[in-house]
Structure formats: C-alpha cells, structure tokens
C-alpha cells in the first residue's frame, strides 16, 4: 500500500501530478491532498503511513520550505521522503530546500518523463 501526500495550493496541479503519476506507471495506491503547509502537517499527523510527500514551495499560510523544516523537527516514527515540485528553480533555492530537509527537487513546468525519473527513486514503476 503506497500512500503519497500532494501539497500544492493549486487543485489543478494536484490533479495533473496524479494523472502523470498514473500514466507513467508509477505505483501509488492512495493520494492524500493538502492546500498549504498547515493542512499538510494535519495530514501527516493523521496518516502515519505516508511513503512520499510532493511539496510546492510558494503557498499561502505556511510555505513548503517552512513545512519541511517543521516536518524534520518532528519526532516521527519514520523519515518520509520529500520532493519539492515548484517553479523555484535557482541553484540557491535547490540548496536551501535540501539543507532544510528536502530529498528531491523537480522544477515546474515538467514533463511526465521528468516526473517519472524524479519519483522513480521513491516509488515502484510498473
């Protein structure tokens, strides 16, 4: 049972990511969605068995970078991989994300192949 949390303030982008994941053969059994970092923390607390978090950077209320810093400060039973999926594409932003606890990075816009290649490190491929 593979469960992925999608965190993006755009519901359309969450739909696009889900569709691309399914079309490229990446195996995900359940998607959980959140519209900002605050909602994402609630989802993490309610779903202890998450396998991966896909995280936008610029969101209202709590940004992606604030979320990942908070997540890494929590005493969770397992370390959930986090992949940033964001328009922030500078080297400085990539470094900041990784130093804050993100594991992977994908810049929008992305192709389905780029999504599969990035997430293939964390999800099985059919």
């Amino acid at each position, binding site marked *: 049972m593979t469960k992925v949390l999608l965190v993006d*303030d*755009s*519901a*359309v*982008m969450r*739909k*696009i990511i889900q*569709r691309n994941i399914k079309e490229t053969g990446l195996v995900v059994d359940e998607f959980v969605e959140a519209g900002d970092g605050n909602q994402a923390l609630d989802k993490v607390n309610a779903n202890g068995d998450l396998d991966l978090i896909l995280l936008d950077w*610029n*969101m*209202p209320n709590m940004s992606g970078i604030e979320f990942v810093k908070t997540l890494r400060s929590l005493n969770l039973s397992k370390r959930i991989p986090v992949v940033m999926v*964001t*328009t*922030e*594409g*500078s080297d*400085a932003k990539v470094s900041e994300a990784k130093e804050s606890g993100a594991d992977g990075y994908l*810049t*929008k*816009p*992305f*192709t389905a192949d780029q999504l599969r290649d990035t997430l293939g490190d964390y999800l099985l491929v059919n």
Partner: protein
Amino acid sequence: MPATTYDNIVEDIISCTNEVFETMIPMEIKCDGSFYQKEDMISTDVISLVSFTGEHSGIIAFFGTTNMAIKITSKMLGMEITDMDQDVKDAMGELTNMIGGNLKNKVFETFGAMHLSVPIVIAGANMSISSSSKEKGDVKFSTGVTCDSTNSWMMTPFSSEGETFNIGLVVKKND
C-alpha cells in the same frame, strides 16, 4: 548565453510560455510578435497575475477570453471543461505562476533575485484596468490590485485555434 536585457525580454517571455505549453499543455500556440499597450486600452475576460518584488518589481499577467481560458484548462487537465469554474481560475493561476517562475529563473542575471507572489485570478467579462494616479505611475486594477510602473504593459500575444491570449509584463527598477 547572452544576458537578458530589457530589449530581449520578449524573447524570454516567448521561450518561457512555449516551454510551459510544450511540457504541460498539449496545445499548439503561435506567437504573434509583441507590442506596448496602455493599461486603459486593455479589455479582457480573465486576468491572472503574479507580482514580483526585488531589485525590480512589477507584474506578469495572462489576459484572455473566457473561451481561451476554458480551452487551456481542458488541455491541462485532459478532460472537457465547458464552463468558467474554479478549476479554470486555478489553472490560469498556475499557468501564470509557471511562466513567471520560469521567466524569473531566466532573467536572474539582469533583474536580480525576485520574490514571486502567489497568483491572483480575476474573471468577468470585458474587464478593463486603469491607472489610479498617472503622475505617480501607479497601475491600479478596478479590483484594487496595484503595482508600481511608469511603463505601459508590454504585451506578447499568442494564438491557437482561432483564439488569442496575451502575456503582459510591467516592470520597474526600484530605487
């Protein structure tokens, strides 16, 4: 690779917009040059804008008809959309966000670091925008969205299947 200047930023806008469509929106678009337009001459159904701040500040925006916004959203989602709904507004916001983010990364060397706002989308019919204070150069939307610019909007028009949309930019170097 040459650095972006004010003169060739149109090429970067075209490149960024084409890249977003080529990667995430299966829809052929054609760029039809560029032009400057005074804000009080703009009439549109959908405005999606992202403001940016830093050494330079301004707005990058999508201006288009309701039909064009619905068509783009249908292609983005891979499903038929028939009405202006929340998904269409959301999609236009994300479209502008991706074009703006991509542009920001391309013009970093010339314009310096910039922070992009989350997108704001306004949908209606034949909306116009106008300056609230020409002398100070403020640009104010009828909805109260403001930025600082002494320039007209630089419009880059795109067309697809008989419909058009514009990607507009106003930018100002901060003192």
